[in-house]
């Protein structure tokens, strides 16, 4: 017995020693082998799988590309808009990088550097803009050494920029006042004396020049930074050589805006100039977005939201892809593949998908944003620059976000694979923890009775797979809630813009001493133009009461609605004293509302008020006729001419109208700051683009999630088919399940979305102190209906796609 024990003990020791030796040997081998293992071979297997599961790989890739496009759109678009804003501020004010004040001779030398690609001083362009702010008796004038340096600053309504010293351009108002047109000659007087001070009246030169262009005073001069310094409406710009012996500011634009201080110092030193400065605006272009925390924060937040949304697509596609390969991984584990090797395969796949996706996404994103910017420019004629630029930071941030997102999407599949039981996987058994489902026997009985067995079964399935069902519902709910919330919040936030655009679309056209027929002829001409929606002729009557200070204006012939938009205030027919404006329309009279409107000779309160009556044929009463009616009344009439209120189609260019008005001596005004309107419209279009992109992600996400959930149940569906369930019945069941998810997600999501919108309203009202004049709580029915329709379509599409794959 003792002997036997000793043998067993010896055997055990031997085993132990052998075991230790083997382990040691394996450890050694393992270390050596690990180095030897050719990862190339495993990568080959990965690529084989990617090719084999083409559809799935493509779905994942599309998810990654979509994610990259959107993230790049946010970063690339954001950086570009930020850069464009800075550049616009720079370009629209001065357009120069450095200013050198020097004598005429040095100025000439500096000007000579322009366009020579001088590497020593890095000068791209140099020019002089000099203008006289003292307009009497010398005309306010300016001279520009090189118009081509900043062509965008001279917004010509007609003609071309001066090409030689014998040409000049004039402001539109100046052209109207002086009755100048393109090709006319005009004599200007200006200073040209070597010893003269520039702004004195002495030593004037008089020259006759040809008008070659007419520029928009309100636009161009403002952009040149000259408004407020001179009577810009009477401005002449002409080319001129530099003066000698007087101090002249020469403006320099560098070939790039890096190290501008150093370049300016070098240039100043090279030409012995003491008085120089670098433009603050030029410097601001180089200030990186990282210094603007709110802007960067907004971009990061937006990118994060998009990342979360698109992550679901990648995660789902990858999950299914891995799930479909579970059996193969089980086999590979059995033949000796370690977990590390399997995970390496997965990570290789993820890496290549992320890399391909991010590169393609950045490329497509760049193109997409360029196209969107193009559309916005085309539709809204925005005055600000909308150009897509390539930024290294945007590129790197997109890569970072996409790689982090893809890595995160890999976590769940990798975790599953780590816990993979090779035998269970080979036999396609679920390795998930088994739960005890307690399903009430009556559950779904009503639905079964009402809609058939399939619908009842679908309902039971939802209860049985509560987890999976909830994932679908929650994901789709988030999408719906975000859409409803974003849509309404955007609507509320852009209400002032919309209101502004609406109110700005009215242009007021003034014509002095014009007859009704003439006015009507102009009206007919205007109506032929694309940019004009409608024109109403009206007349303004200034009425003065008996007591000093009392009085009012009548807008005769103007519709109430147009009047309201025109004047941005309510038309008050129930007039009280000192109310300044009363629209009186034909309609008012025909509807016999005149009891509310004072008539000629009526007394109103303590104030006699007199109103024209409307002529049925012309819309306005004839002046002479009115004089007859007036008799001895002590009324002073100050206006009898006709004006027009034209409603513009702001999506069209106004140039045609501008030229027509100029040609016909028609002045126009109106609250219309058209550049601002176009910019506002541009902003709205961009917001709409964001919502459209969001919708695309939302739909793809929905289909992807629901398809993936159905594909995971392929085995169950096969079993149902085997035991005799017809294809039609399976279809009905699947439709019922998908619709159940969609309807629940829609209801809950819409509710949460409305709450989000309300939350946004409260935040603006109480925290952000937003001007509440235009900011009203607004929840549009469309914002709720659209996700509902999309969810229904997605539910149907899901089943169609899933059945096709089946």
């Amino acid at each position, binding site marked *: 017995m003792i002997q036997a024990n000793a043998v067993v003990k010896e055997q055990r020791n031997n085993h132990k020693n052998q*075991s230790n030796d083997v*382990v040691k040997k394996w450890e050694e081998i393992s270390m050596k082998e690990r180095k030897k293992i050719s990862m190339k071979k495993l990568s080959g297997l990965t690529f084989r799988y990617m090719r084999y599961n083409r559809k799935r790989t493509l779905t994942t890739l599309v998810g990654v590309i979509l994610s990259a496009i959107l993230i790049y759109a946010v970063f690339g678009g954001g950086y570009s808009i930020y850069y464009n804003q800075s550049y616009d501020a720079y370009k629209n004010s001065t357009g120069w990088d450095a200013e050198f004040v020097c004598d005429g001779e040095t100025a000439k030398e500096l000007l000579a550097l322009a366009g020579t690609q001088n590497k020593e001083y890095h000068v791209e362009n140099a020019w002089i803009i000099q203008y006289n702010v003292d307009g009497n008796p010398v005309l306010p004038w300016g001279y520009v050494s090189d118009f081509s340096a900043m062509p965008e600053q001279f917004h010509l309504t007609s003609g071309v920029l001066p090409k030689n010293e014998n040409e000049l351009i004039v402001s539109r108002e100046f052209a109207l006042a002086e009755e100048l047109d393109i090709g006319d000659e005009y004599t200007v007087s200006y200073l040209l004396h070597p010893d003269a001070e520039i702004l004195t009246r002495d030593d004037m030169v008089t020259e006759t020049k040809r008008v070659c262009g007419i520029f928009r005073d309100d636009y161009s001069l403002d952009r040149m930074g000259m408004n407020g310094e001179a009577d810009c409406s009477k401005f002449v710009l002409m080319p001129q050589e530099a003066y000698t012996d007087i101090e002249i500011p020469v403006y320099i634009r560098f070939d790039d805006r890096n190290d501008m201080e150093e370049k300016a110092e070098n240039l100043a030193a090279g030409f012995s100039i003491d008085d120089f400065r670098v433009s603050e605006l030029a410097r601001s272009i180089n200030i990186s977005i990282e210094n603007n925390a709110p802007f960067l924060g907004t971009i990061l937040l937006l990118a994060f939201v998009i990342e979360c949304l698109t992550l679901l697509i990648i995660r789902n596609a990858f999950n299914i892809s891995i799930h479909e390969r579970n059996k193969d991984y089980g086999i*590979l584990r059995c033949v*000796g593949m370690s977990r*590390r090797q399997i995970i390496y395969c997965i990570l290789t796949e993820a890496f290549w998908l992320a890399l391909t996706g991010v590169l393609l996404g950045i490329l497509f994103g760049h193109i997409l944003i360029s196209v969107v910017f193009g559309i916005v420019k085309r539709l809204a004629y925005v005055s600000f620059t909308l150009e897509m630029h390539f930024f290294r930071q945007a590129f790197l941030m997109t890569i970072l976000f996409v790689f982090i997102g893809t890595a995160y999407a890999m976590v769940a599949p990798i975790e599953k694979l780590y816990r993979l039981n*090779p035998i269970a996987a*080979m036999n396609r058994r679920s390795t998930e923890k088994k739960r005890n489902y307690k399903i009430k026997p009556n559950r779904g009985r009503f639905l079964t009775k009402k809609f058939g067995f399939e619908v009842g079964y679908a309902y039971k399935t939802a209860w049985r797979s509560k987890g999976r069902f909830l994932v679908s519902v929650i994901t789709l709910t988030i999408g719906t809630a975000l859409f409803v919330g974003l849509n309404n919040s955007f609507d509320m936030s852009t209400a002032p813009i919309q209101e502004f655009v609406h109110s700005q679309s009215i242009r007021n056209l003034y014509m002095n001493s014009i007859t009704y027929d003439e006015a009507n002829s102009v009206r007919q001409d205007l109506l032929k133009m694309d940019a004009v929606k409608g024109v109403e002729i009206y007349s303004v009557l200034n009425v003065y009461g008996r007591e000093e200070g009392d009085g009012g204006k009548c807008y005769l012939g103007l519709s109430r609605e147009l009047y309201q938009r025109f004047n941005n205030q309510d038309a008050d027919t129930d007039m009280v004293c000192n109310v300044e404006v009363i629209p009186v329309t034909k309609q008012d009279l025909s509807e016999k509302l005149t009891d509310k409107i004072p008539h000629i000779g009526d007394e109103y309160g303590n104030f006699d008020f007199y109103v024209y009556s409307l002529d049925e044929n012309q819309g306005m009463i004839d002046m002479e006729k009115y004089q007859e009616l007036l008799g001895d009344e002590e009324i002073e009439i100050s206006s009898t001419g006709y004006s027009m209120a034209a409603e513009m189609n702001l999506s069209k260019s106004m140039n045609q109208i501008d030229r027509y008005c100029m040609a016909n001596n028609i002045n126009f005004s109106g609250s219309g700051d058209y550049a601002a309107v176009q910019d506002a419209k541009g902003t709205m279009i961009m917001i709409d683009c964001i919502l459209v992109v969001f919708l695309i992600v939302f739909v793809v996400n929905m289909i992807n999630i629901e398809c993936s959930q159905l594909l995971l149940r392929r085995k169950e569906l096969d079993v149902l088919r085997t035991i005799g369930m017809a294809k039609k019945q399976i279809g009905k069941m699947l439709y019922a399940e998908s619709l159940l998810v969609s309807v629940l997600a829609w209801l809950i999501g819409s509710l949460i979305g409305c709450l989000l919108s309300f939350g946004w309203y409260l935040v603006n009202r109480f925290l952000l102190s937003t001007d509440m004049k235009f900011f009203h709580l607004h929840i549009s029915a469309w914002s709720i209906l659209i996700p509902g329709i999309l969810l229904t379509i997605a539910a149907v599409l899901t089943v169609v796609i899933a059945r096709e794959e089946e």
Partner: protein
Amino acid sequence: MEILTTKNLTKIYGKGDTAVTAVDHLDLEIRKGEFTAIVGASGSGKSTLLHLLGGVDTPTKGQVFLEGTNIYKLNDEKRSIMRRRKIGFVFQTYNLVPVLTVEENIKMPVLLDGNEVDQTKIDHLLNMLGLTERRNYLPNQLSGGQQQRVAIGRAVVNQPSIVLADEPTGNLDKKNSDDVINLLLKAVHETEQTLVLITHEMDIAAMADRIIHLEDGKIVNDTGKRRGERTKKQP
């Protein structure tokens, strides 16, 4: 000399009332070069035992020693290396990697090890298995018998210490079944490997040096246990 030993090997599925003991305190020794057939009714624990022997499942209790090493003491990396070098698996459902060709499937354990493939050896193996013509086919382009032959090739390519076959003829007709068994025996004979085979077919079991009868996870009969050297059976 024992190549494979189990001590008190137990596998219980489930918990409480639903617990099922698939392998019950089983002590087993498999000698080098021995052809062992494990027989038993469905649910007797044959497959579970084989999976435990191969290190692809985890025992509830007990140890499995392969060439003196307790395989369940090894970490996953080492156990995987051991599996690809020391153990060959043949399954009833072939379990080939669908994206790899016949030749690549056979090479897989070698490639996983990071070794260079000895092409002469692969050619010889393909020739022996009668798959030379189909070396570039994908598994789904092969018949059941051919797929099983590929699985045999994959199991023996690394010349493992032991080949574990789980009803390799379960899905095949009589002719293919005979072919596969003959090839399996020929392959293990050529490389002097140990074979543990699960089968329902007694005529296949009869070819073994040793037959183990399992019932409720316990060995109820072990014929030829002490027979010593394996009888050389030429296929």
